[in-house]
């Protein structure tokens, strides 16, 4: 065990000595400098080990040989050890990173850095409140000097503003300390807490607490007293910003944590309110921010707000810190390492504006690290922030603090908005110049180290949270990690490896599942395998493609095996993020992917809120099955949780992301999104229905609402599909509509309805996978997605044509192929249920579907070939092969629907009494009957007969070439306007015009614009004037006083 006093001893001894040692050369100085920092790190790591592995007693150091309160004492326990380890690792790494910068500004900079580190260490260790003040001053002064030491105008200005804020804060702090001293007669924090002095509500003591916490709230950069912090983050060298944002803010937070037991109840609430407000508002303002370092500044400030809020809530709702230690630690360390990493990357890239970050595109390592840290900040699994946020929201739910849930979740969404926009620009922005970031090995090393620490911490925290079925839940991540090792090898090897691990995972899951879960995981895994095969048609794949694909599929499969809410939510997030990272690979998919991520995250956060409401009625509920006990809150919980699923199925109102994302994602990926990913939402809705039945919102059955939602989705999406010019966009709308039918089926809550939904789930997978793959092949060969730029391809691509034809027949529900089965089940179910009007609308929708089906096949394959497409070849075998497997399935299930329907019926049987019977191959419902087998035979038979007849009759028939239309000596500006396939259904559009107003899109646009406007109005308070910032600090004082004096 190292005596903690050696930290200040070593730091000061070295700092005082360094000026003399300068004459021995820079090398000596550097060695000693790093030795000292290394000693700090080693010491704190030893403590960490002692406290967590050996359960050592808490270390207490009494200076001057007297016991407190006579003397100042330092304390290192497990919490301090964690903090110290983080801070000292950061300092060591940060010093390493900053080495050239420190060299430029000379020896003294090292002294400043060393003492800065000491200040942070002291803040963590000391148990004396005045000593805390001294260490705070040391930290602050060191950071002022470090900020200003490059003597640029900006950093000087920022430093000056910081100093004014810091001076004000220290005046308040000192004021608080002296008042507290008068009240308690001691300066020892433990003594003060023990004396319970602050429980007294005399104005003097309340004033003492007020001054104390006001000061620390200012240091925590709470809104609105945080303009200076933003300037600092923006202007300082990113290496310094990293130290301040992670290190000193962290140490100050711990200091606050230490003295927070002094606070009275009014302060718990004040902290919660201030913190959440800061979190929301800084993320809101950041929406308009384009400057990277300032953006990170807003994010840092927001994270501080989150931490403060968590601390406040912890005391407010819980009257104690037990449950919240985990939350605070998770949120804290998550931000700590991720933000430091991001600042370092900002320092490497050296691009000021987020638009210029596209330079990262050619540097996969940096891009990877950026993405990783951003995901960590967003609280994606498996990072620590995820576990922290989950636990926090659950606790808040348990304590009936839903305004906190709402604020925190809203803030998280805003944070995702700007961070992901930034990432999107880095990943897919337009390249501006060719100046590439040239990271030094040193810089990459420390950043990579922090990435590693982030991951490790996440794993550690996750291990503490995932008590049951740990392996199942983390399996997807392990698989992705394994596949990551195959990066750099040929595509064949990568696909092979992917197939192998997926199969392995399938075998792992097989014994765990039956019934519906089995069915869905079959689609997820089996479908995934098939789609993986199809990816082979593109010989080149960028790094990370296969790990992400496997992560997406396997996390979806885990959804079906999840028993706990946390496991479910974790894999839901994994699926969301992996699919986001896949979508953004499309050439122009930046905005689409952004929208997708935002909607998905919004849904996921709503789900989180739903689970937290459940906590209220059933505290400590961990299992999904606990949803069954929702009771009177069933309506709310159902509504909230279903948001996530409705986004994934792109139900009307939540569909804005879907057309763009489907259209702009890579072609084979679109097939996976539409065919497989959307089913995850269906699975979710089924789960909800299984556990919650049909809950009521007041007297309205939510299933009726859901049913209508599905119906309208089916209708409007189909209507939109027919007016698209882009083949993928057409199929995207079609996909939205088709999934709408499935939602209807689920919502019916009847045997037939679920059968319809399940049947259609598989069927939609088959035909939409088929269609998207076929179109992917066409796009691969022709290089365009616009249908009017194609034509007559039937002669060049007959196999693809056949695929598409089978696909659209199955889609449109024309007998005898499988599509009809779904339609039949659906209408039988609807009429049986008494949803007549819905049936009518659904029918209308399904007739409209013919229009786009025809459009698709006609514009691409029929008519006159384009001159430049005369030499187009058939799509590659590698993409045709999976299509024909799908076609084979379609035929099998068309011929023998019973093979699918009977097992499905058995799966649904546990939930509803079967209303579908069998007479041989005839399915008999309470209303009608259907014999798919006879139907198939009958149609084939008649078809063959008529065909033979025509063959005989037209034996002399001659094939002629179709003629072209001419432009009559005119060359139109937009040649496509003269093409009949351009705006094919114009008259229909005219007829339907009233229904085509994009009201929902306008609604969401309005929401987005108003939010952003709110941000730009609010950010006016940061007018750049240091004096105004001082005024804002005083304003915070008054606000806080108003907040706390009432009690």
């Amino acid at each position: 065990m190292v005596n903690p006093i050696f930290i200040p001893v070593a730091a000061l001894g070295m700092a005082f000595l360094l000026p003399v040692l300068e004459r021995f050369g820079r090398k000596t100085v550097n060695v000693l400098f790093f030795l000292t920092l290394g000693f700090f790190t080693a010491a704190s790591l030893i403590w960490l080990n002692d406290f967590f592995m050996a359960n050592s007693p808490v270390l207490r150091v009494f200076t001057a040989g007297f016991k407190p309160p006579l003397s100042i004492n330092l304390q290192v326990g497990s919490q301090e050890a964690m903090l110290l380890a983080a801070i000292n690792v950061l300092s060591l790494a940060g010093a390493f990173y900053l080495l050239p910068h420190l060299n430029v500004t000379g020896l003294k900079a090292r002294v400043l850095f060393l003492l800065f580190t000491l200040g942070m260490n002291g803040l963590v260790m000391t148990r004396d409140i005045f000593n805390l003040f001294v260490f705070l001053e040391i930290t602050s002064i060191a950071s002022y000097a470090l900020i200003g030491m490059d003597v640029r105008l900006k950093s000087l200005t920022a430093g000056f503003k910081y100093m004014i804020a810091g001076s004000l804060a220290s005046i308040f702090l000192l004021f608080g300390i002296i008042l507290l001293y008068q009240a308690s007669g001691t300066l020892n924090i433990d003594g003060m807490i023990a004396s319970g002095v602050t429980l007294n509500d005399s104005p003097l003591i309340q004033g003492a607490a007020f001054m104390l916490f006001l000061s620390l709230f200012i240091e925590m950069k709470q809104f609105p007293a945080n303009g200076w912090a933003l300037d600092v983050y923006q202007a300082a060298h990113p290496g310094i910003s990293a130290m301040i944002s992670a290190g000193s803010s962290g140490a100050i937070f711990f200091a606050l944590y230490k003295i927070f037991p002094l606070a009275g109840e009014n302060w718990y609430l004040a902290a919660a309110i201030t913190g959440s407000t800061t979190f929301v508002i800084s993320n809101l303002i950041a929406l308009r921010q384009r400057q990277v370092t300032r953006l990170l500044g807003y994010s840092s400030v927001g994270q501080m707000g989150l931490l403060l809020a968590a601390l406040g809530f912890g005391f407010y709702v819980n009257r104690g810190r037990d449950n919240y230690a985990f939350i605070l630690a998770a949120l804290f360390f998550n931000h700590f390492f991720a933000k430091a990493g991001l600042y370092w990357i900002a320092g490497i890239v050296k691009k000021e504006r987020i638009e210029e970050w596209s330079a990262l595109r050619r540097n996969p390592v940096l891009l990877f690290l950026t993405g990783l840290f951003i995901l960590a900040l967003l609280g994606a699994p498996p990072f620590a922030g995820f576990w922290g946020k989950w636990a926090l929201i659950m606790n808040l739910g348990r304590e009936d603090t839903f305004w906190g849930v709402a604020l925190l979740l809203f803030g998280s969404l805003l944070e995702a908005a700007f961070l992901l926009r930034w990432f999107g620009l880095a990943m897919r922005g337009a390249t501006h110049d060719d100046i590439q970031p040239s990271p030094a090995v040193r810089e990459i090393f420390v950043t990579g180290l922090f990435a590693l620490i982030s991951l490790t911490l996440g794993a550690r925290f996750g291990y503490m949270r995932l008590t049951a079925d740990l392996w199942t839940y983390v399996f997807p991540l392990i698989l992705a990690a394994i596949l990551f090792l195959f990066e750099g090898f040929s595509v064949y090897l990568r696909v092979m490896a992917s197939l192998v691990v997926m199969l392995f995972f399938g075998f792992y899951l097989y014994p765990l599942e039956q019934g519906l879960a089995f069915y869905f995981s079959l689609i997820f895994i089996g479908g995934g395998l098939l789609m993986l095969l199809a990816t082979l048609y593109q010989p080149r794949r960028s790094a990370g493609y296969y790990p992400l694909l496997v992560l997406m599929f396997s996390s979806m499969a885990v959804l079906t095996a999840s028993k706990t809410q946390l496991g479910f939510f974790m894999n839901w997030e994994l699926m969301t993020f992996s699919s986001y990272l896949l979508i953004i690979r499309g050439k122009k998919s930046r905005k689409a992917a952004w929208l997708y991520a935002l909607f998905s995250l919004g849904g996921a956060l709503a789900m989180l809120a739903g689970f937290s409401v459940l906590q209220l009625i059933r505290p400590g509920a961990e299992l999904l099955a606990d949803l069954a006990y929702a009771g009177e809150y069933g309506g709310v919980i159902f509504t909230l949780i279903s948001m996530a699923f409705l986004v994934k199925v792109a139900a009307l109102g939540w569909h804005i992301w879907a057309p763009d994302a489907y259209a702009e994602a890579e072609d084979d990926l679109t097939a996976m999104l539409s065919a497989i990913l959307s089913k995850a939402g269906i699975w979710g809705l089924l789960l909800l229905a299984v556990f919650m039945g049909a809950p009521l919102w007041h007297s309205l059955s939510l299933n009726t609402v859901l049913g209508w939602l599905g119906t309208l989705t089916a209708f409007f999406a189909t209507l939109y599909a027919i007016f698209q010019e882009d083949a993928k966009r057409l199929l995207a709308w079609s996909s939205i509509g088709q999934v709408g039918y499935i939602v209807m089926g689920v919502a019916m809550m009847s045997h037939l309805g679920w059968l319809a939904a399940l049947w259609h789930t598989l069927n939609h997978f088959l035909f939409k996978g088929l269609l998207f793959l076929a179109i992917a092949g066409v796009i691969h060969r022709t290089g365009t997605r616009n249908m009017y730029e194609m034509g007559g391809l039937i002669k060049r691509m007959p196999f693809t044509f056949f695929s598409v034809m089978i696909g659209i027949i199955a889609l449109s529900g024309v007998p005898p192929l499988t599509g009809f089965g779904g339609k039949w089940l659906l209408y039988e179910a609807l009429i049986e249920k008494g949803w007549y009007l819905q049936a009518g609308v659904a029918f209308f929708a399904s007739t409209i579907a013919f229009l786009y089906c025809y459009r698709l096949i006609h514009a691409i394959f029929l008519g006159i070939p384009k001159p430049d497409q005369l030499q187009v070849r058939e799509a590659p075998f590698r993409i045709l092969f999976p299509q024909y497997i799908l076609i084979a399935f379609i035929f099998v299930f068309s011929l023998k629907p019973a093979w699918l329907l009977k097992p499905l019926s058995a799966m649904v049987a546990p939930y509803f009494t079967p209303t579908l019977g069998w007479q041989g191959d005839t399915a008999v419902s309470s209303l009608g009957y259907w014999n798919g087998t006879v139907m198939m035979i009958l149609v084939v038979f008649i078809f063959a007969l008529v065909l033979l007849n025509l063959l005989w009759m037209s034996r002399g028939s001659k094939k002629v070439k179709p003629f072209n239309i001419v432009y009559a000596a005119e060359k139109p500006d937009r040649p496509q306007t003269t093409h009949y396939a351009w705006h094919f259904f114009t008259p229909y559009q005219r007829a339907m015009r009233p229904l085509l107003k994009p009201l929902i899109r306008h609604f969401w646009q309005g929401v987005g614009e108003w939010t952003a406007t709110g941000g730009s109005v609010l950010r006016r308070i940061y007018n750049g004037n240091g004096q105004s910032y001082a005024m804002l600090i005083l304003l915070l004082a008054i606000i806080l006083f108003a907040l706390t004096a009432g009690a």
Partner: protein
Amino acid sequence: MKLVMVLGAALMLIGFWGLITRRNMIKMILSLAIAETGLQLIMIAVGYINGGTAPILDSAVDKLSAVQQVVDPVPQALVLTAIVIGVAVNALMLTFIIRLYQKKHSLNISDYKDMKW
């Protein structure tokens, strides 16, 4: 001693007022220094006991009955530290002002609004 308390509070308010109304940066620092002085007065006043003597156990103060005679030494020790720290910070701030002045030749705080929003 209430009077000193009021004086301290008044000085703090004057300091804050100067901080948020004077545009000249040196004046702002001066104001801060005044506010600090006010606070230090308050601190000493907190430690004062009516009629007490300085906490020095010299010939005038009996070592045994000192408890009844002397004022509280702790605030004095704290103020000592606070004064030194205050001067240190002021010196650093003034250095910043010197450097800023060299960049823009202005002492007006509202001329340094390059970063905002």
